[in-house]
């Protein structure tokens, strides 16, 4: 019973080893040449305002996170659908596309209302 978990443990150990090995090699071999722009969290784009570790993010990230949730949950419906698609046939196919279409309309609507504009 427990033996069937052995591959998982081996996998876990391998991942742990590889990750630490890469970090270690990087630390030893990699050239270091730090300067101010390189150390900032965003090397390109906007000037950061304040530190990221205080937990103060732009409120606008929340809006994008909320829009993301919709499509995140959509995959929850896509997985069981994909498994039984052949059994149910065309009806399920059309039904799911109607579902995705409705969600897409929601996104387009949010877009048209200006939710994606960076204000």
């Amino acid at each position, binding site marked *: 019973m427990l033996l069937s978990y052995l591959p998982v443990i081996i996998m876990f150990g391998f991942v742990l080893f590889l990750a630490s090995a890469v970090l270690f090699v990087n630390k030893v071999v990699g050239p270091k040449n730090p300067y101010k722009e390189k150390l900032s969290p965003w090397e390109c784009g906007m000037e950061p305002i304040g530190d990221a570790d205080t937990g103060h993010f732009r409120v606008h990230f929340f809006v994008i996170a909320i829009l993301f949730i919709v499509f995140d949950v959509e995959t929850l419906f896509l997985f069981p659908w994909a498994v039984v698609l052949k059994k149910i046939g065309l*009806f399920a196919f059309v039904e799911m596309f109607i579902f995705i279409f409705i969600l897409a309309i929601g996104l387009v*609507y949010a877009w*048209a*209302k200006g939710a994606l504009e960076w204000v």
Partner: protein
Amino acid sequence: MDVNIKLFLPEIFITLFAFVIIGIDLVMPKGSERKHLARLGIIGSLAAINVLIINSGVTGTTLFGLFIQDGVSIFFKVLFLLTGIVILYMAMLYEEKVKNFKGEFYALILFAVLAMMFMASSNDFISLYVSLEFLAVTLYILACYTKEESASVEAGLKYLITGALASGFLLYGITYLYGATGSTEFTSISRILTGKEMSGFLAIGLILVVTGLTFKIASIPFHVWAPDVYQGAPTPVTALLAAGSKAAGFVILMRVMFTALGSIKPQWVLFISVISASTLLLGNLAAMPQKNIKRMLAYAGIGSAGYLLMGIAAGSVLGSGSVMFYLLAYLFAISGTFLAIVIFYNSEGSDSIDAYAGLSRRSPLLAATLFIGLLSLAGVPPLGGFIAKLYLIAAVVKEGLMWLAVVGVLMAIAAMYYFLLVIKRVYLLPPKVNLPIKIGTVDTALLYSINIATLILGIYPGPFTDWVMEIAKVLFRGN
């Protein structure tokens, strides 16, 4: 595929109208007036009522037993659509207060009505839960709609947190009922439970489901949101919460208690009776010292939930018929009162009870509406609310719950006291300023018809009570 479109045609109508409203709103110039959208919504609701009445003979279940259309659901759908019409009209009067997203305000009200219609038709815990949450999410947004006002967003947040907590309880209870019976469909749960002993799973499930549902009807233990949310939310939304959301809570409570759990009635009668009595006491006693009229109506609404629970505790055709009659009378009393509050607020900018002093000299019609509406809520003859309370008390007496009836009668007297305090200000105290309040023609017509409806329900209730008693029999088909 088990799809019979004829059964949910009115819902399709409302959905289409709501989306059309959103669509038109998108192409309308920014910041312009959106009152035509409310009128469109009212037309849509009227059309849906027509479709309902034309197809009222078509009943049955569809969508794999998730959706049921029967006498009860048709009654409640008409009730919800009427509520929707009044609320949309109220929102139209309130439009100046809503700064942004005016079009969506009307669409969301229609979506709330749609959710309530689905609740009236739920025949399975899955559809019950999904439609209940659909309504809840819509109402969370509506409650904090005037987001420039801090009271409104505060109300929305409090509503959301208590609502989510309550729906957690409800869902946990549903899980255990499912575990005890192996089904989520009401009629098959009832079939499985017939002749069964009470088990641990069943008891936990029953208690948690009832506790979770008390949130929607604003009774103990999940009543705490009501005062703050009623006060902070925009007034049309408060009216929607008071008339619509409460009725929707009761239709699912009736379906769950009578259709699904009717066969174990002896196990839950005492539980419901205790909730009912404590809700009656708390609501009516806490309403007395209130200074804000919306907050006072919130406590009065908690008291009403106590009365309505008496009908559930009776667990009979008489009890559930009385619940429906009460909700009908309640709808007219509440919509008249809140319409008067909105008109008064538009003119005076205040919801405080003291501001109503001398209203009878400034606008006799508003004063009369408050008089009829509040006294109907208090249960004074010859108004609709009196007959409704009489039937509910008769229903519990018939089931042998004398003590509950006594609490009911005593609290009706208490309710009389705090409503009369408002009426005293309206009629007997002198006004601070003696300017008449302007009321539009349509407002006048609507106020008159609502008042007449309350009077008819009180003076000539015979046909209506016969009608609801006939409908209520459907709920008990399982046993």
